[in-house]
């Protein structure tokens, strides 16, 4: 096939992005575990990963710029490089948020907690991690059939976000949970919601990569197709 070297460079670039994504996914797993077990040591182990993610992100970005300058990509090659840059940004930012949460876990490991809010936090953590993994899997396999499920999953995380925020600002009568923990919990709720959004965005970027269409348009077509099927 012509442009074999270019294709190899694109494949390598894609592999690097997925590898970075798996690193962030692993960090999210560790964070979830530490959140559940209140393990400051495990959480502390992830402090500093942000700098590494940012460095890898900058390297991938540079590779994209060089490829654009040297290869003048168009069509699917251009969409791939554009998507790689966007997805890398989502990965790095999700990684940064994950480190923030680990920092919060480490700082409040011994603090008094609100069991209801903590339960909501843990559920959100699982939802956000799942969404991030789904988005990354969709990107890695370019499996856009799965992308239409992202919005519904994100709605569930958004609902948990509202519930958790409500608990954070309206403590029970017993006033359980130290103020310090409650503030960190509120921030963590916000970070988790953002991580879930990054997962959704990664999946939606993949729809653009594969079809050239924005997710909104693709989703509209998908919904229309569903309605047509019911009409039949």
């Amino acid at each position: 096939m012509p442009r074999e070297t270019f294709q190899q460079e694109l494949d390598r670039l894609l592999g690097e992005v997925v590898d970075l994504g798996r690193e962030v996914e692993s960090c999210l797993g560790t964070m979830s575990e530490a959140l559940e077990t209140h393990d400051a040591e495990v959480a502390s182990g992830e402090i500093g990963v942000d700098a590494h993610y940012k460095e890898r992100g900058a390297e991938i970005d540079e590779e994209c710029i060089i490829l654009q300058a040297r290869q003048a990509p168009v069509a699917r090659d251009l969409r791939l490089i554009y998507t790689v840059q966007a997805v890398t940004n989502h990965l790095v930012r999700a990684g940064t948020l994950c480190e923030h949460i680990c920092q919060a876990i480490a700082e409040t490991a011994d603090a008094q907690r609100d069991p209801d809010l903590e339960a909501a936090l843990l559920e959100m953590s699982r939802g956000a991690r799942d969404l991030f993994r789904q988005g990354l899997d969709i990107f890695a396999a370019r499996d856009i059939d799965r992308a239409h499920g992202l919005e519904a999953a994100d709605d569930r995380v958004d609902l948990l976000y509202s519930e958790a925020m409500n608990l954070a600002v309206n403590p029970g009568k017993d006033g359980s949970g130290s103020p310090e923990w409650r503030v960190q919990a509120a921030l963590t709720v916000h970070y988790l919601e953002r991580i879930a959004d990054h997962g959704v965005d990664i999946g939606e970027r993949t729809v653009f990569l594969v079809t050239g269409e924005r997710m909104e348009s693709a989703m509209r077509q998908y919904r229309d197709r569903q309605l047509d099927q019911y009409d039949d």
Partner: protein
Amino acid sequence: MSDISEQKPRTGEDGGGSSKEPAALGMKIEDLSAFYGSFKALTDVSMDIRANKVTALIGPSGCGKSTFIRCLNRMHEIIPGALAKGCVKLGDQDIYAKNVDPVRIRRRIGMVFQKPNPFSKSIYENVAWGARINGYKGDMVELVERSLRRAALWDEVKDRLKESGLGLSGGQQQRLCIARTLAVEPEVILMDEPASALDPVSTQKIEDTMEELRQRYTVVIVTHNMQQAARISDYTGFFYIENMGDPGRLWEFDETSKMFSAPDRKETEDYVTGRFG
């Protein structure tokens, strides 16, 4: 149907030398097929070429792009045994109607070729000659200057208009040919790989003239340079031969931004990304 040039009186045609220029017209092609003897080189091409837009035609060698463009001003039939079937309209006029004069068509739809082919005459005469034999009686000096300016050549040759056109560089010769085409005040300009024989700087100068040309003319350009098509055109048509020996077809036609970002057909995407073959 009467001769189309009689239906639409134009500047210069009657020798009046009016400064009023004709508005650019679009072209509409319906079910066009082209033959070389019994060999069908192109089949069933339908395309709307918008006025005051640059339309690029791309595709692998031998897919019928040049044949197609030569059908647009009746140059194809110059080749013995060559024949075009179908409908080609300039504005509302069928250029293949019986009593249409192909010579007049070729003046209204000018052509610039791959290899610069200036006459063995002075720079001035290269530009003035076509207008003069068409009976232009206006201010010829003004026409020559205007045409050279629009072809982005004036500043480089204004002090040596009496020198031979053959003494110019390849890129300048090509712009001289563009000026020569403009001097007979066409509505459409066809360009068959106009920069493929030029160095990058000369190519850039030709591309730079496109924006100026687009303001006043309808431009159709055949190019093998994909980035050139992406840079200069508003619409792009991809010609393709599905199986060896088949006639060429217009495989996909759309806005250039779409063709180079997310074309509908796999073959188009394979071609523009260089994955062909």
